[in-house]
């Protein structure tokens, strides 16, 4: 299967504007960054979380803790997926009584978010869990809603949203297209 892009919906400048806005929204909603922690969902969510944390650090003068979460061991669809290498989870700070913002690139069915919340709870009991995503493409299968959305992109089930980031793909952009075999 290969991804064939139909349109670029978000470019690099858009992404940096979006992340700045999301950073401000997080601070506004939580009245500052004192007990805030960001946890990115592997792979691209981790880099988004780091960038947002950097922006918050510039605004507030102090950077919140950032962690990385691999949710493959918590997925409810293990049996139907190809076993891929499991990434390392790094949460080397206490999450008890903190506000933890989960960060992911695309929100789709909600199943990854569900797995991420389960994983997170094994590390302690956060006061609140919030969700920030770069793109919400709809088609939820679980009662999950993002607190911070970069951009809503209505899609059909056949379509794919592809997020590219500087750190992993060499360029910042979001494309919409289809998988073709």
């Amino acid at each position: 299967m290969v991804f064939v892009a139909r349109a670029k919906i978000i470019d690099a400048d858009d992404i940096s504007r979006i992340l700045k806005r999301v950073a401000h929204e997080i601070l506004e909603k939580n009245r500052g960054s004192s007990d805030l922690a960001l946890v990115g969902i592997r792979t691209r969510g981790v880099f988004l979380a780091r960038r947002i944390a950097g922006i918050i650090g510039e605004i507030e003068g102090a950077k919140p803790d950032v962690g990385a979460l691999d949710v493959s061991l918590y997925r409810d669809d293990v049996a139907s997926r190809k076993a891929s290498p499991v990434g390392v989870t790094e949460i080397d700070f206490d999450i008890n009584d903190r506000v933890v913002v989960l960060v992911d690139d695309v929100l789709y069915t909600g199943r990854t978010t569900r797995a991420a919340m389960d994983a997170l709870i094994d590390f302690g009991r956060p006061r609140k869990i919030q969700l920030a995503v770069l793109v919400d493409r709809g088609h939820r299968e679980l009662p999950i809603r993002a607190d911070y959305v970069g951009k809503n992109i209505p899609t059909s089930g056949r379509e794919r949203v592809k997020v590219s980031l500087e750190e992993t793909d060499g360029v910042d952009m979001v494309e919409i297209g289809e998988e073709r075999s």
Partner: protein
Amino acid sequence: MNPPEILKSGVSGPAKVQSPEANRPRHLLSIAELSSDDIIRLLDSARSFAEVSKRPVKKVPALRGKTIVNMFIEPSTRTRMSFELAAKRLSADVVSFTPSGSSLSKGESLKDTAKTIVAMGVDAVVIRHSSAGAPKLLTEWVDCSVINAGDGMHEHPTQALLDLFTMRERLGRLEGLKVAIVGDIDHSRVARSNILALNKVGARVLLVAPRSLLPDRVEEMGVEVTGSIDEALRWCDVLYLLRIQLERVSESRFPSLREYTLQYGLTQTRWSRLKRKPLVMHPGPMNRGVEIASVVADEVEPVITGQVAAGVAVRMAVLYELLGGST
């Protein structure tokens, strides 16, 4: 078995009914059948699983609903515990089958025992057996995954994986690493699996033992051999000591434990003379005062207990690879 090349003209045998590739259970029977990529992938994945064991809740739901049978026909506390912990940390259900009081000691065949266990609907059997090849045999009778936890003098693949994991974490690399394995190579499945695994990832292996403790034509496995531990100590990055057993004396493999210690033991004198100390490893349990002096054992203890911790992570990686997700 396959006919030799000259006989492979067309028909290769009576058609055996086999399930399609995708649905066939996968096994870990030996290091011999793994590629270097397989080994590196398992070691990478083990690193992620090592983190799980450090969490406040040391359990992930990855194998929830899977049932694993620990079938230890030959006694072993450490490996069995390690597999059990690995399975439980992945949320699998684990049942133990041990021969004391079981029907195997009443003359039931391995085949019937295996069929019985499988009839109960399990996803994997972890087998430790005193007969080489028993895990491979088991795959013919069961429709679930089989994991070799040590078979006779043949192989102990997860031990080799955890040893490589430890070397890699401690020394940062495997390729080009110089590993000396000391002791009763002939009777050691740990040595066989380590030799094969180290070869595959590009490490160099030197076996240190009197000829009477080496298997026939072992050089053809791609190792060098020396009779001198002092030569090995000057050369190696890793010194891997094997457990020596007293019963080998009665088999005339070496004259006495005292003689063994003098010739092949990691004595305090040998250890203190070394300017550059190698990483000392041991599959456990150590014979203090025989293959390793007690003082030296205390000094290298952290590495050896590290091996034990690595064992759980590596076995989680193996169980997850075989049972988690389809291929």
